[in-house]
């Protein structure tokens, strides 16, 4: 059935494909080995048209999940549906082979065919067409992805970002029902990233299919918007809009991935129900932080995550400030990373990492040994269970 559908759409290029609902529903279990032992991907989710970001550390099972959907790996059990068609059902012993699934898959290493030119790579999946028709189609999509000048080059002769675009065009030219992208931006610099994402978004406006976008980079999660699924050791730890999932993480792995430079063990010392906050003490120190109220009892142990960029430094004790956490400390080290200044500040035995601009460092004459105050809002403190 899938083959028939493809050859039809391939032979009638002028008639736009009928917009079919191509929601993806996945409910599978699959054991997979990784360097730390055998894990099991065990997930159930639905992805609608548009971007769904799958976010997780390396070894979380992201690639195994995509392999199962593409059909290059067989799940141990479960079902996979696309737009109402069954791709896999372990109970019915149905397993549509990868070449009949019409699932576009851009693998992490791209897997461009080294013996073919960029154009031959792009046109690889077109079949049942005349040579002229193939040229026309591959030319069209290559110019849309701005790689038409690379037609006759081999993959080894083009840059990383261009290879990425070739792999993407090769998958999209077949008008797949689902697109799977495994870390497609990992090798790109920032401008190349946003230009590729823009081109992909534009394409997605005319082709309303689900795009599963795998990444381990927290920034990309925010940049792509839409839905995010957080995968941790093969299981879905959270799902929702990026700011919901990423700003209030429930798992420490997410916190580290999502960019909390400061993560502390803490113990709840007081609850302030009427104020909507609680006070907790960091580690074995005397340092206390006021954080948003969560369901917890005095004595509960938890972790606090704070982004270095959410903290302020002051050289005099601030007055009349809404921020509830003002801690005095001493600068231990100052490092410059590109245009960001990272200051390590010791506050009574707890070290905070604070990110500042170059201008702020020079204006405040910050240097190791200097006495400062670290300032953090209550809502910059993110609580995580242990």
């Amino acid at each position, binding site marked *: 059935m899938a*083959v028939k559908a*493809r050859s039809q759409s391939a032979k009638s290029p002028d008639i736009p494909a009928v917009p079919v609902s191509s929601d993806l529903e996945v409910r599978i279990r699959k054991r997979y080995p990784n360097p730390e032992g055998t894990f099991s991907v065990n997930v159930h989710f639905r992805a609608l048209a548009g971007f769904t970001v799958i976010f997780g550390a390396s070894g979380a099972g992201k690639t195994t999940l995509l*392999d199962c959907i*593409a*059909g*290059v790996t067989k799940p141990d059990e479960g079902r996979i549906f696309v737009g109402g068609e069954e791709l896999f059902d372990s109970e019915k012993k149905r397993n549509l*082979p*990868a*070449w*009949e*699934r*019409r*699932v*576009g*898959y851009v*693998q992490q*290493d791209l*897997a*461009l*065919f*080294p*013996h073919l030119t960029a154009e031959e790579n792009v046109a*690889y*999946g077109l*079949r049942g067409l005349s040579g002229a028709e193939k040229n026309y189609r591959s030319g069209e999509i290559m110019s849309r992805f701005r790689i038409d000048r690379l037609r006759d080059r081999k993959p*080894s002769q083009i840059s990383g970002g261009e290879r990425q675009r070739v792999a993407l065009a*090769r*998958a999209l030219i*077949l008008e797949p029902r689902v697109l799977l992208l495994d870390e497609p931006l990992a090798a790109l610099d920032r401008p190349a990233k946003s230009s590729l994402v823009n081109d992909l978004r534009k394409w997605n406006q005319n082709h309303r299919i689900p795009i599963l976008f795998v990444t381990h980079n927290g920034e990309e999660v925010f940049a792509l918007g839409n839905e995010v699924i957080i995968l941790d050791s093969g299981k879905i730890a959270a799902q929702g809009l990026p700011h919901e999932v990423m700003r209030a993480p429930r798992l420490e792995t997410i916190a580290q991935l999502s960019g909390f430079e400061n993560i502390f063990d803490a113990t709840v010392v007081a609850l302030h129900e009427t104020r909507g906050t609680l006070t907790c003490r960091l580690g074995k120190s005397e340092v206390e932080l006021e954080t948003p109220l969560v369901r917890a009892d005095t004595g509960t142990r938890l972790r606090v995550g704070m982004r270095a960029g959410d903290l302020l430094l002051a050289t005099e004790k601030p007055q009349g400030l809404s921020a509830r956490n003002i801690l005095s400390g001493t600068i231990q080290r100052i490092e410059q990373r590109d245009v960001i200044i990272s200051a390590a500040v010791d506050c009574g035995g707890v070290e905070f990492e604070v990110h500042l601009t170059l201008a702020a460092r020079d204006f405040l004459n910050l240097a190791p040994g200097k006495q400062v105050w670290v300032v953090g809002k209550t809502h910059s403190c993110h609580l995580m269970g242990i």
Partner: protein
Amino acid sequence: MNWEAFWLTVRLAAIVSGLLVVIGIPVAYWLTFSRWRWKFLVEAAVSLPIVLPPTVLGFYVLVALGSRSPIGRWWESATGHTLAFTFPGLVIGSLLYSLPFAIQPFASSFGAVDRRLLQASASLGDGPRQTFFRIIVPLSKGGLIAGFALSFAHTLGEFGVVLMVGGNIPGVTRTISIDIFDQVQTGNYSSANQTAMILLVISFAVLSLVYGLNRRPWAAGPWR
């Protein structure tokens, strides 16, 4: 110089290495991609001719082709004469003898093709058959040529199996290596030297071709 023996040998080597491409490719494909748990037994059996003395191999082939075996009887009833000590019998013996020299390069070049490329081909709509011809074969060109050339060269120089299975019948089963042996036996050293030199030069040329083709800078050349 015995040109009759020379052309007989070249004909034998060409037929054997040609047949080995046809037989060896599916066997090598199966050895590379099968997940059968007893596959290693087949791998060991295929490689036996590398370590067995040619006389052992030749002996069993002779027994298998003889008029007491089912194959030998079938051939006799079909053609009216025995398979042993004939050119077809020699082809069968040489096929077995040179089998690993074709299959091992085939299988190792198939195995060297990145699995991710095969998966990519599948997700672009190609079944295993199309993937084999569009991805595996072009990327295994070096191994396919090496397997063909090595089995050709190996068949050129075989001695033990030929003697056991084919005997020494001029124009039918007398190959160059046996001819050289005969010439040495009769004290005709200068003729033996000529023939031996030709065999040496051809073998060197074939092996140079194999290693030359697999040279890295060329392997990335425009004709690949």
